[in-house]
């Protein structure tokens, strides 16, 4: 067993080295002066605000869909459930670029015209960024919540009902609090993917400077225009900011878990 442990540890160390070497190559490519210059630039500040705003909105909409979907899929058995679950997984298996291409075609046709008539435009607009992030992250958010919902015994629901709670009260006061960990994990996973989303965003919302410019799009535009300093320093700042937010959110969550 000790020998097996040692071999497993070697794999762990090798993988950590691979990750750290990749990330540190980015950090070594820039200096504090370039970082500060980028951080103060209008374009970076736009992409920072825009990324945080779109990822938060898409995460919220995703959560709104994921909780009821996860509840239905975890608590009920019905004909065609497996097929529906497979359909739910399509955005996970499909490359985001292909997924974005599909919606580019969809919104470029009659469906897009219908939405435009009521003033909603997905293609090449900030709304398209939110939609691209939403469609990519929802299966991840939903799957995390579904797993934790399915682990909550149906008997807890029954005991709540026998204590005089309505079905909705049982959901609000028993299921959601018991699923808190899974929901949090789903949110973290979803947000991380939303902030890093590139392929689907590029296809649906395009790469327009100061309009649909999320962090990844900013990096892409930097490379495309030959401004490597801006691209690399944006990447570095994106890593630092994402980590800071994750640590703060995780810390706040763990302080709130009291049982």
């Amino acid at each position, binding site marked *: 067993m000790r020998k097996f442990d040692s071999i497993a540890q070697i794999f762990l160390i090798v993988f950590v080295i691979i990750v750290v070497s990749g990330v540190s190559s980015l950090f070594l490519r820039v200096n504090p002066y370039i970082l500060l210059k980028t951080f103060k630039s209008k374009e970076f500040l736009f992409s920072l605000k825009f990324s945080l705003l779109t990822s938060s909105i898409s995460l919220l909409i995703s959560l709104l869909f994921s909780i009821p979907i996860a509840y239905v899929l975890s608590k009920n058995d019905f004909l065609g459930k497996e097929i529906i679950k497979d359909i739910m997984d399509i955005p996970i298996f499909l490359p985001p670029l292909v997924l974005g291409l599909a919606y580019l075609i969809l919104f470029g046709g009659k469906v897009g015209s219908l939405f435009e008539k009521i003033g909603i435009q997905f293609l090449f607009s900030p709304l398209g960024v939110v939609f691209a992030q939403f469609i990519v992250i929802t299966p991840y958010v939903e799957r995390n919540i579904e797993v934790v919902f399915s682990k909550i*015994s149906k*008997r*807890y629901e*029954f*005991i*709540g*009902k*026998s*204590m*005089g*709670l*309505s079905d909705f*009260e049982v959901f609000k*006061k*028993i299921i959601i*609090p*018991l699923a*808190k960990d899974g929901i949090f994990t789903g949110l973290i996973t979803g947000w991380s993917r939303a902030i890093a989303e590139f392929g689907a965003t590029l296809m649906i919302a395009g790469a327009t400077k100061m309009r649909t410019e999320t962090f990844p799009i900013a990096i892409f535009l930097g490379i495309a225009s030959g401004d490597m300093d801006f691209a690399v320093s944006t990447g570095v700042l994106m890593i630092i900011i994402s980590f800071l937010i994750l640590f703060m959110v995780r810390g706040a969550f763990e302080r709130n878990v*009291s*049982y």
Partner: protein
Amino acid sequence: MLVIENLSIKFGNFSLKDINLSVQKGEYFTVLGTTGSGKTLLLETIAGRYRVSNGKIILNNTEITNIHPKDRGIGYVPQDYLLLPHLTVYENITLGKVQLDEEVIEFLNIKHLLNRHPSTLSQGEKQRVALARALIRNPKLLLLDEPTSSLDASIKRVVWKNLDRIKKKFLLTVIHVTHDFEEALFLSDRIAVMKNGTIEQIGTPKEIFTFPRSKFVAELTGIENIFEGVGILNKKGSFVSINQELNFFTYEKAEGKVYLSIRPENVVLKKYKENKINEFEGTVVKILEKGFFVRFDIDIGVNIVSLMSAKDFEELNLRAGDSVTLEIEPKNIHLIPYDKNLNKEGVEND
């Protein structure tokens, strides 16, 4: 109070079949059965966990067969208590905007636990909290699912006494599920014995104890001496022949195949024959001292078990291998109808 009429429900491969029973107001009613007999399924069906398509459940003259559990007014204490881990004891008890009832809290001695989380409580404390959670809602009916199964043997009797006190204090109607016959004897006004999703017998503890109506009920109540025999009617009762060698006389009447049951404590051992009826000579096979009681296995052609007090055992001074005479009074021999569906080991034939 509670009336169940022709209730049948299927749950996977198991089903409750044609359950009929009524529980009176203020009654302590016990459902006794082995694991897998359907006791918990029955209890949870009464509480409203499952949708019923066949039969009726009526509580206080109102049909509640398929109404939402929250509207039934039934308190339920599950076997594993199911306290919500994310809530304190106080929040668990008052969930659903119920006011805390100081009397219940004081009576169950849980005031000092109110700010704690369930994970920090002992089994006994969890049980008292689960009871408080049910009692605080003034239930019309209290359902208790194996309330002592996870407690140490030494605490069980204390809990029995407490349950008896609670029932009297809060004037409750209780349905209590258990596999422990002693527990059922101690607490119940009436007992229903369940087997394979059906009710085998309903009666007072004395009726169930003394006159089991089936071999299964007899075994569940601790009767080890159950023999298959053939009855021949007599003016005063009947003679039952076992293995065509041993003839037992009983005041009960039966003809043809029948089960004969004798409670071990009614098998009296003595050193010498007195030429009385139902006297048999045999050999002591095994002696097992069990504290206040001593258990004997006696071979009289069949193995028969006798229980006697440690004091009587001392006076008789018997050892394994000794010859002994045993006597059973005719009034202590009970006959059970022969069940063609059972083989000699009491296992159902296909």
